[in-house]
């Protein structure tokens, strides 16, 4: 497929990168592993005159461990994350999620930062320009309609990056550098819930790292991803769960349940989380899964009907809770 021309820029520092993005504002974008961006450029759903490659910035790589948290550079490859002893030991949930992204080729090119900044997806959006020319554009490509929900006033494209729900479940934060300097924020806040513009990040800023608090003792977590094929596919539905307990087999003291691919952002199910607190897992588990089921509002033509995706939400939430529970016991 045809790749439109662009100018390739390779900054050596974050400051340089931000300066380039500011200078060519509107026409520039960053590339990390390129496993998503190159496809979008070929489809001409993003059009860039300048592509700013972050791969020459050495301090965006690597994993740093501190007493109560760990920090992972945005350019760290997913393949490095899934096999890092450090991460397997202290943030297994992230390693699990990273290991089920795409296929091996995607993971050896794809980076953590790129994965977190994934755009939402839709059958009517992730298509070539030629394909899209068969019909008038939809909201997400600048038009005035939605092909998925004809009566809807907005875009319902689905967020389906795999590591974000895991990291939100772990309570991760991201470090962002922009023209105004550096800031740190909850990862959860990166996701706008707006299908058309799902990532809350201005075009001059970049994510430099992800900070993960170390889980307390008696914690367990799991990411359940359902997809048709064993590799390559994005999730039809995903559920990330992180739990902490008072003691092994004791009551739940902290719970996060994050659903993936059921809406325009990775979404926490707070009612379900609350329902677990102060209770033993086996007593609260079914109710939590049911609450997740009730809260999910998937839209059709996104890998399955709403009926089916809701069923999956329940099954996957239950399975993730069960796994997290047994991991917490195994952790003693």
């Amino acid at each position, binding site marked *: 497929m045809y790749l439109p021309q662009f100018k390739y820029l390779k900054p050596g520092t974050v400051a340089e990168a931000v300066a380039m993005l500011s200078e060519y504002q509107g026409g520039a974008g960053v590339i990390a592993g390129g496993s998503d961006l190159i496809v979008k450029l070929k489809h001409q759903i993003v059009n860039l005159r300048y592509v700013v490659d972050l791969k020459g910035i050495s301090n965006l790589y690597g994993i740093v461990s501190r007493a109560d948290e760990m920090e992972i550079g945005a350019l760290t490859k997913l393949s490095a994350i899934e096999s890092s002893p450090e991460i397997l030991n202290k943030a297994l949930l992230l390693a699990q999620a990273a290991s089920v992204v795409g*296929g091996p080729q995607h993971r050896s090119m794809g980076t953590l930062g790129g994965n977190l900044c994934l755009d939402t997806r839709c*059958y009517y959006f992730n298509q070539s320009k*030629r*394909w899209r020319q*068969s019909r008038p554009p939809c909201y997400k490509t600048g038009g005035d309609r939605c092909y998925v929900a004809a009566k809807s006033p907005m875009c319902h494209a689905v967020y389906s990056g795999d590591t974000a729900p895991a990291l939100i479940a772990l309570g991760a934060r991201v470090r962002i550098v922009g023209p105004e300097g550096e800031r740190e924020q909850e990862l959860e806040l990166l996701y706008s819930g707006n299908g058309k513009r799902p990532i809350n990040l201005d075009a001059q800023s970049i994510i430099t790292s992800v900070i993960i608090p170390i889980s307390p003792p008696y914690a367990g977590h799991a990411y359940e991803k*359902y997809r048709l*094929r*064993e590799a390559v596919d994005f999730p039809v539905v995903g559920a990330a769960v992180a739990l902490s307990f008072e003691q092994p087999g004791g009551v739940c003291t902290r719970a996060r349940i994050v659903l993936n691919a059921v809406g325009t952002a990775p979404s926490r199910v707070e009612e379900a989380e609350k329902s677990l607190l102060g209770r033993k897992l086996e007593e609260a588990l079914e109710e939590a899964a049911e609450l997740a089921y009730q809260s999910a509002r998937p839209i059709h033509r996104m890998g*399955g009907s709403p009926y089916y995706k809701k*069923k999956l939400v329940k099954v996957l939430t239950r399975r993730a809770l069960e796994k997290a529970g047994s991991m917490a016991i195994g952790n003693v």
Partner: protein
Amino acid sequence: MSEFAILGKPTPRVDGIPKVTGKAQYAADLSVAGMLYGEVLRSPYPHARILSIDTSRAERLPGVRGVITGKDFNGFRHGFMAHTRDESPLAPDKVRFIGDEVAAVAAIDPDIAHEAVELIRVEYEQLPAVFDPEEAMQEGAPAIHDHVQRNISAEMHFNFGDVEAAFARADHVREDRFYSQSVLHGFLEPHACIAQYEEPGKITFWGSKQSPYFPYRNLASAFKVPLSNVRVIQPVVGGGFGGKNDTFALDYAAVMLSKKTGHPVKFVYDIEDVLMAGRRRHPMIIYMKTGVKKDGTLLATECRVIADGGAYTAVGPMTIYLAGAFLTLPYKLPNLKYDAWRVYTNKPVSVAQRGHGVPQTRFAADCQLDLIAKDLGLDPVEIRLKNAIEPGHVTVNKIHISSCGLKETINRSTEFVNWKERKQELAKEREKGGRYLRGIGLACNGFMSGARLHGHTACAVVVKVHEDGTVSVLPGATDSGQGAETVLATMAAEVLGITLEDVHVSRVDSFLTPVDPGSYGSRVTSTAGPALLIAVGKCRTQLAEVAAKLLDAPVAEIEFRERKAFVKGDPTKQMPFGKLCRLAYQYGSGQVIIGEGYFGQNVALPNWDTGEGDVANAYTFGTQVAEVEVDRETGQVKLKKMIVAHDLGKMFNPLIVEGQHDGSIYGGMGQALYEECLNEDGLTLNPSILDYKMPTALDMPGVMESINIETNDPLGPFGAKESAEGTQVSTVPAIVNAIYDATGIMFTDLPITPEKVLRALEQKEQGGGPIVPASI
């Protein structure tokens, strides 16, 4: 010890190393000096009249050398038979599906060609379109081809015996409706070609073709040049499966643009071209009514097929012919009524795909057989053994069976899994509950070995022995990835007693290699094989005559093995093969050791109107046994085991046969569980291999077993028959029947998506029937 030196041994393929090391040259890898790059413009509408095409802006773009439209072809149309020529190289006046090609450009680089295509302005008048074949058949539906009534592109009506009387006599009659969806061929190499037109009227064409003599004929007639002026040179081909037979827009456009510009022109389609606009398997709606005796004996089948043909006819009449004619294999069926309509719709064109029409109706028939077995309280194996065809059988539509190992394939494959015990064991396991429902199922197949369908279907081979003892084989046949080069080399080496390294098999070059129908209808081993044996036999005779003189022995006593010529029973009299060849070339005034042979099916043409007659010299038979695991909570089905038992006459190379079997599992599993061209108002929603769910290597079953049954066919080379398409005929029904065993639900609509399964399981729990709406 085997009587053969190479035949039957697990020898690695001769094309294996160049392919896995990236050295093999596919069409897209080739370049010719001065070459331009082409690109096509496709229709964005499913049905529209072309009012005007303005190419002036494209022509003015710097770097553009030529722009063509449908008008450049002066009304030339192509198609399989004279009365079905309904397709133009580029649509001249009307487009009939999204992706129909309307114009093409040639430029000095691919980016300029792409920009130029976007500058072509086409004014369309959109017409009402129709996508559902049953709607398209109604009076008053939009006419896709102006003079065709009710959009019927082809129809077949067969009537053998008396089905009505048989149904009246039957103890049990069942009627079911099945649907087999649209799936792609799945070759990983998209279409590509380079064409060079030189005055006066010489065409050289390099293209990814499984049947290179199709473009040889089509290009000669499109450009009105003698056949001897058309040189089709075949690069390595990255899979075909029926999707690389025809001559396509890019092929004609490359030649036309070369003629206009004076430069060679290269076209490379990408995977989106293939998935969005390429050819695919015929979707079929199949109504099947079958009557049986209480003991399971088949009495009659009445089958009605509505095949969704897409926008043009192509090879379609043959597809619906085979889908019906093969209903009388692999089980004895004394009465058959078959009515099929192939209907135009505003969608990409349906053509042959591995198994060519037969997998669709076999899916319906073999799944219905399991429903019948259940109704009658019979075991699926028992009912198949009861009806299985045996050697010497003549079907009601006069298909003559010689060798037939069907019963052995049933017995060996079911013994392999301990059918009875395994079935009970899984039933008990299901009663216990748990996350998975597991089940086991089987289905059988019968297929043609070397199709005799229409026109020229004989194969020819030339063999040249060089004076150093090496050998060149020049077949007309094509290796489209199936391993034909290795098989032909094996046969030549075996006859001359030399090694595979001594034999070089050339690819098709229509200046040099003999004309051939193409690699379809499972014909290379079965039809080119005997031609090769004739050709290499002539070389052997010449060499034996020289050896007899040199070794002073009767010609009949000369043997060839271990790269030597021997005199039978006298080990002192021998000579290296290379030396013999050298001496032969010096013998007298010098001999040239060369042989040629051709071989055609020894049967009359089948009757196209009645459906009667043979379609091949020989027929293959087989059985597949599948074990599946169904996740109760997600509805996901995983194929865990697949046993393929095939009567291939004679096994030449277990590695290649296993590859064919694995391929048939892959293709059939994809169709049963994963793949579907999602179409919305004529637009393919999933034109990428991310969204079009071809299974990955990780999805393949952990247990895949090949069981080869050798029946030594009297007409096959060394007794061999096909081991190519036949096996994919029964993959789908074996899987569907296994799901039936696991869930008690017969899924009659392909593909069996997890959502369909989950809905049906829930409906079953609530006591309702399994009627499942499709969803994406």
